[in-house]
């Protein structure tokens, strides 16, 4: 069995992103693999380990620096990777999906796993686009996955858990709760150095210009919250009521 895992290399969940001149300032910001994608990789590894045969192939589209994120997943245990190297980050999920789908076609995986959204832009579109370009089904926000004879049984998190069956190959978008991703080990890191990473480019794939229909034009910091006010003692009650009425306009 061949499982493809799509990963995104994003500013770390702890990172503070500043905005300057309508652009995101990511200089000096730490990047890591989007946590949702860690669930995808862990699930792929568990499936292959249980089967005792097969391989996990990591796919990423983005600039050269993403090699570090790819290495992290190889260190966790993925077997090899395909990196579509772009000059800059691909911010249009439609184009990212198109590129990934093209690379995936060549590999023909039996199952495609990815985080249901990236932790950076929170869009949740890329995986769906991949499925669309490949003409295969998708299920997103999956917290439980069972495979049996060419089918995937997915529990999709919602107000009520939905159980959805799809034929493979399919794109499954993973959500927190699916598993506990392992930590990479030193041995894994050493092994990862020798694992093959195939690099290609949009030009080689023949998609130098994607079907980009939406672009980010500006970023702005939301107005910062006003500092809280503190009132002490019962005698301040009248003042609080006044402010609730006149300033906060809630009563």
């Amino acid at each position, binding site marked *: 069995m061949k499982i493809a895992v799509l990963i995104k290399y994003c500013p770390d969940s702890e990172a503070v992103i500043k905005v300057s001149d309508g652009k995101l300032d990511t200089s*000096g910001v730490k990047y890591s693999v989007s946590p949702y994608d860690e669930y995808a990789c862990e699930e792929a590894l568990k499936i292959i380990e249980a089967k005792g045969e097969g391989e996990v192939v990591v796919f990423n589209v983005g600039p050269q620096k993403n090699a570090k994120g790819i290495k992290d997943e190889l260190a966790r245990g993925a077997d090899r990777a395909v990196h579509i190297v772009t000059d800059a980050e691909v911010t249009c999920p439609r184009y990212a999906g198109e590129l990934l789908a093209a690379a995936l076609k060549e590999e023909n995986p039996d199952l495609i796993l990815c985080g249901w959204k990236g932790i950076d832009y929170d869009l949740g579109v890329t995986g769906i686009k991949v499925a669309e370009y490949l003409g295969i089904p998708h299920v997103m926000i999956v917290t439980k996955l069972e495979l049996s004879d060419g089918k995937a049984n997915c529990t999709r998190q919602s107000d009520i858990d939905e159980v959805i069956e799809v034929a493979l190959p399919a794109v499954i978008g993973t959500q927190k709760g699916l598993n506990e991703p392992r930590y990479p080990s030193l041995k894994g890191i050493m092994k990862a150095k020798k694992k093959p990473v195939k690099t290609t480019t949009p030009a080689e794939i023949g998609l130098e210009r994607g079907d980009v229909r939406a672009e980010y034009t500006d970023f702005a910091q939301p107005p910062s919250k006003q500092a809280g006010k503190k009132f002490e003692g019962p005698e301040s009650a009248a003042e609080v009521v006044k402010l609730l009425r006149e300033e906060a306009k809630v009563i």
Partner: protein
Amino acid sequence: MFTPLSDIHLSHLRSIVGDEFVLTDPESIDYASRDETEDLCFPPECVVRPGTPGEISAIMKFASAEKIPVTPRGGGTGLSGGALPVHGGIVLYMDRMHEIIEIDEGNLFAVVETGIITEMFQDAVEKVGLFYPPDPASRGTCFIGGNIAENAGGPRAVKYGVTKDWVYGLEVVLPNGEIINPGGKLLKNVTGYNLTQLFIGSEGTLGVITKAVMKLIPKPKFSAVLLAAFDDPHAACRTVPVLFREGLDPSACEFMERDAMQMALGHVEKTLPNSDAAAHLLIEIDGNDENRLAEEIEKAGMVCDEGGAIDVILAESGQRVNEIWDIRRGAGEAVKSHSIYKEEDTVVPRAKLPDLFVGVKKICADRRVRSVCYGHAGDGNLHVNLLKDTLTDEEWASRLPPTITEIFKHCVSLGGTISGEHGIGWSQKEYLKLAVSEPELNLMRGIKKLFDPHGILNPGKVIDNRN
């Protein structure tokens, strides 16, 4: 001796700080009668929450004249009973004095009132990209004043030093009410005796610290953590000095034996692949160059591997790093919630850690007292938690003191001492003579007498004012 508080005293205190800040209700009294030291309980006669150094000065003058004990209290997280009013009197609760007066980005100094919670101070400086490294595991509750009074450490001390290395100036109210300002935003200062440093670690016995000038640095951009599992705790301890000899400069190097790890995992409801290993080392490295950091963390992993680690795992993303730290930070509470306990804060030269650990385990096994050890291995600082567990009250009472004495003697014989960061306070006082010579004790008594001739400031702590 001391004068019990009368209504006249209380009304005078009220005239100094205002009615609402002199508390005698049972809840306030109960709160101020305990800290985090075992089950010690010493109720004060009243709790005063001062708002300015001037008010504290007036209180100290009054208390000196009337012979009323005054005990400063920070966050109340102390582990040697320092904030407990063992002779009653007034507890001076510093919580109202919590302003950050200044963050001076030009000189990289901050000026704060000492009632600020350590973590709030850290968060505030991190907002402007700066860093105050000392990080006692209690940082969410303890105050900067308490950190200064205890010279607190924490995991990062191995690279960045302890509280004393970050305090450059103070404002202190002396027991006679005088207010002094030793030190300042000066990186060099040889102007007479170093009074600033004398107050650091003085455990609230020499003066009430009201403001502090704290050094800051830019925050390192990246950090990564590795966790190495060993099936032999001795091998884990032996690996620690090798890391430094190999030129690594970890920002933390922590040790946990099996029981500590398993209790901590239970406490934070986590699992780890090698949770049943005999010991773990947690090593953190920070820096500004991501590639170099990756090389260094790999090298640290190799050193552990060569030192006999059975497995080494890595955490790099912020989320993963936090997960591992939550386990380590949870260890103290996890172990302490397990049973009645007594915690010892042994410290030896780093390379003697293996001998300290082996000796402690043997002493405890021989005396049939359960021990759980973890600590700041890079500093040679091992926290030994002695647990009552299944012992009867009598067994606990009779076995504990000789076990502690023997542990401390062993520690001192290795060139170590009996407290690395928790202080002597009340609970370790009887053991001080094991580590400090009589002439030194006499000097300390003389210093105490000079600062506090009436013996009203935190009486009964650190040393007894005999002679």
